[in-house]
C-alpha cells in the first residue's frame, strides 16, 4: 500500500517520462507517431521480402511474370476454351490479366497481412517495435509487385491494341492511384482483422484460403458483370471489389461498368474495414504473445 501512496504524492507527472505503460488502462491510442521512427525497419523488411523471394532460383525475378502467366493460361483453357464464357468482346487473355493483376494485389495483401502475428511470433516474443510495421511492409512489397505485374499487363495491352483488338483507353484510367489505394485499404483492413482473430482462433487460418477463393469467383474477373443477372448480380455488387474491378476494366478496356454509386459503397466499406482493423490490431498486439 505504501508504494501506492508514495507514487501518488511524487511531484513528477506522467509527462516527465518517455514511456508509460499502464496495465489497467484501456486506451485506444494507436501510437502512430512512434511508427514514424521505424521507417528504416519498414524499408529493410520490404527489401528482405524481395531478396529472399528469388534466392536460389534459376529464373530469379522472372518468376514475378511467370506466376501470373501460368494462372492466366489455366483460366484461358478452362473458362474461354472449355466453358466458353464470353468476355465482352475483349480478347480473353487480356480480360483475365486485367482483372487478375489487381485481384492478386488484393488477395495477396489480405493473405499476407493475415499472417502477421502467427508468422512473426518468434520476433514479436522477443523485441518490441510497433507491430504495424510488419503489415505495412507487406503492403509496400505487394505494391511493388503490383507495379511489376502492371508492366506485364501494359505489355499485353499494347500487343492487343496494335493487333487491332476492340479496346480503348478512357480518361478514367487517370484514377488508377485511387483504385490501387482503395484495394490496398480493403486488403490491409481485412488482413488486420483476420490476423488479430487468428491469435486466439486458429480456425480462421484454414477458412481464409477458401474465403478468398470464393470471393474471387464472386468478382467479375473471369466474366463480365453484365453477364450476371437477378440475385447473382446483387450478390456480386455486395462484394466491394466488384465496383473497383469493373471501373478498372472500363478505364483500360472500355467495356465494364463505371458507377460512382458502387464506388462510394466500396469506399465506405473499405474505410470501416480499415478503422476496425486498426483498432482490433492495436488491442491484440499488447498481449497476444500470452495467448498465441
Amino acid at each position, binding site marked *: 500500500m505504501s508504494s501506492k501512496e508514495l507514487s501518488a504524492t511524487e511531484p513528477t507527472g506522467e509527462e516527465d*517520462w518517455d*514511456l508509460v*505503460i499502464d*496495465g*489497467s488502462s484501456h486506451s485506444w491510442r494507436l501510437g502512430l507517431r512512434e511508427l514514424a521512427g521505424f521507417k528504416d525497419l519498414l524499408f529493410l523488411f520490404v527489401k*528482405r521480402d524481395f531478396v529472399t523471394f528469388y534466392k536460389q532460383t534459376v529464373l530469379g525475378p522472372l518468376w514475378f511474370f511467370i506466376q501470373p502467366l501460368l494462372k492466366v493460361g489455366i483460366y484461358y483453357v478452362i473458362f474461354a476454351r472449355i466453358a466458353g464464357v464470353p468476355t465482352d468482346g475483349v480478347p480473353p487473355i487480356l480480360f483475365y490479366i486485367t482483372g487478375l493483376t489487381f485481384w492478386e494485389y488484393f488477395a495477396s495483401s489480405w493473405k499476407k497481412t493475415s499472417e502477421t502475428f502467427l508468422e512473426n511470433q518468434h520476433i514479436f516474443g522477443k523485441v*518490441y517495435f510497433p507491430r504495424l510495421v510488419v503489415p505495412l511492409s507487406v503492403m509496400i512489397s505487394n505494391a511493388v509487385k503490383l507495379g511489376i505485374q502492371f508492366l506485364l499487363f501494359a505489355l499485353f495491352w499494347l500487343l492487343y491494341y496494335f493487333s487491332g483488338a476492340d479496346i480503348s483507353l478512357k480518361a478514367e484510367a487517370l484514377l488508377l492511384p485511387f483504385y490501387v489505394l482503395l484495394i490496398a485499404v480493403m486488403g490491409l483492413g481485412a488482413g488486420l482483422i483476420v490476423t488479430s482473430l487468428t491469435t486466439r482462433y486458429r480456425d480462421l487460418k484454414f477458412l481464409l484460403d477458401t474465403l478468398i477463393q470464393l470471393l474471387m469467383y464472386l468478382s467479375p474477373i473471369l466474366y463480365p458483370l453484365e453477364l450476371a443477372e437477378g440475385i447473382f448480380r446483387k450478390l456480386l455488387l455486395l462484394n466491394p471489389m466488384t465496383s473497383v474491378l469493373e471501373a478498372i476494366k472500363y478505364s483500360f478496356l472500355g467495356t465494364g461498368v463505371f458507377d460512382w454509386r458502387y464506388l462510394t459503397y466500396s469506399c465506405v466499406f473499405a474505410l470501416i474495414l480499415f478503422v476496425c482493423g486498426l483498432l482490433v490490431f492495436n488491442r491484440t498486439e*499488447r498481449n497476444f504473445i*500470452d*495467448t498465441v
Partner: protein
Amino acid sequence: MRRKALEIVEVSKQYRLGEFGTGTLSHDLKRWSSKVRGKGDPYAMVGEENRRDLKGGDYVLALRDISFSVEEGEVLGIIGKNGAGKSTLLKLLSRVTRPSKGKIRARGRIASLLEVGTGMHPELTGRENVYLNGAILGMSQSEIRAKFDDIVEFSGCTRYVDTPVKRYSSGMKVRLGFAVAAFLEPEILIVDEVLAVGDAEFQRRAIGKMKDVTGSGDRTVLFVSHNMAAVNSLCSRALLLKNGMLHYDGSPESTINRYLEESSSEKDMSKLRDRKGNGVVKVIAVDVQGEQPGQSPQSGQPFALKFKIDNSAMLASKDLRFDLRIDDYLGQRVAWLSTSLLDARADGAPGEITFAVERLNLTAGLYYVTLYLEAKGEVSDWIQNAFSFEVNEGDYYGTGRLAPMNQTNVLMDFKVAYHV
C-alpha cells in the same frame, strides 16, 4: 540525487494455464457479457501464488505487486530460481507483453538482449542481417552503418560477412547476433543470460563488453543471470524474486547470500528403492555443500556432505558405521571415506552425519557416491550410486594454474624443492 530511469509500481502479470481450446470462446463470451453489464472481469486476478508444484485454478500470477525503481546509471541484478518471474518481468520491461495491473515508467530508449539474433533470415548474408537485426532492435540505418565494421570485427565473422547466414555454424550466428546487440546504445539495457552463449573466448569478450557498458556509469542496466559471480562483479544492487514476488532488495552480496541460503540443495533419499540391508537405520536425505550452503563444490574450497538419517532405533554413534565410496564418471573409485577410520563420537542417538573436507582435493567433474551404512555390525542401508555431485574448477594450488582433468581426479598437497 540522481533521476530515476525506471519506475515500476505495483505491477502484476496474470497468465492463463493449460490449453487454449474450446474453453476460450465461452470464457471470452462470459467476460464480454459481464463487461457489457458493467461488472468487472470475472476471471481477473483469481490466480494464486506462482508455485509450479501446487495444483490450482486456471490462472496464475507470474508477478504479484512488484514495485521498485532504478536510478540512472545503476546496474541492477535480478536473481531468483527458475519460475520466480524474472523472465516475465523482463518481457514486461521490453514491451513484449503488457502488465495485467500496475504501471511502468521509463526515461529513454529501452533495448533488450532477451535473445540474440532475433529476426535473422537464413537466406540473407551476414551483412544484410546485421542491418536487419539492428533495425529490429531499434537502430537507424546510419547508426548501423557507422558501427558496422566494429560489429563485424567483434563478432569475428569478417571473412563470412557476404555469405548467407544459413551457411554459418550455430556459434557464428549467435556471435553475430550478440555483436549487433552489444553495439546498441540505449539508455536502459536489459540483459538476460546472453553471457551463456558462445565458447569461453567469446564469453570473456562478452563479459568485457558488459563491463565497459556498466562501468561507464551513464547507462542503466538490468541484468538477469544465474551466474552469481557475474552478478556480484557487474551489479551495484540486486533484487531477489521468489514466486512472483519481490523478496529482497539490497547490495549484490546480501541478495546473493539470501538467495543461496534459501535455495537448499538437499536431495531426498527416502524414496530410493534400489537399496539393500535390514533398514534398521536409513539415510533420508543428503545436502551437498560448497563454500556456502547452496553453492556447488569447488576444488580447493571447503566441501561438506550432510546426511540426514532415520535413526528411530535410537542407536548410538559407536554402533554405527557409515562409508562413502566416491567414483568418477567412469566408475573408477577415487576415494573411500568411513567413520570407522576416525575417532569421532557423539553422545545420544545421531540424526545427522556430516563429512567435511577443508580443501576439496578433487578436480572438476561429476562424481558418484555409494552409501554403505552398518548398524551393530549388520548391513542396514546400502545404496549403490545413491547420488552424484558436480565439482567446479577451482584454483587448488593458489597459482592460478589447473591440473588437467584427463590426467587426474585427485589433487595432492605437495612441495617442490630444488637443490643445486
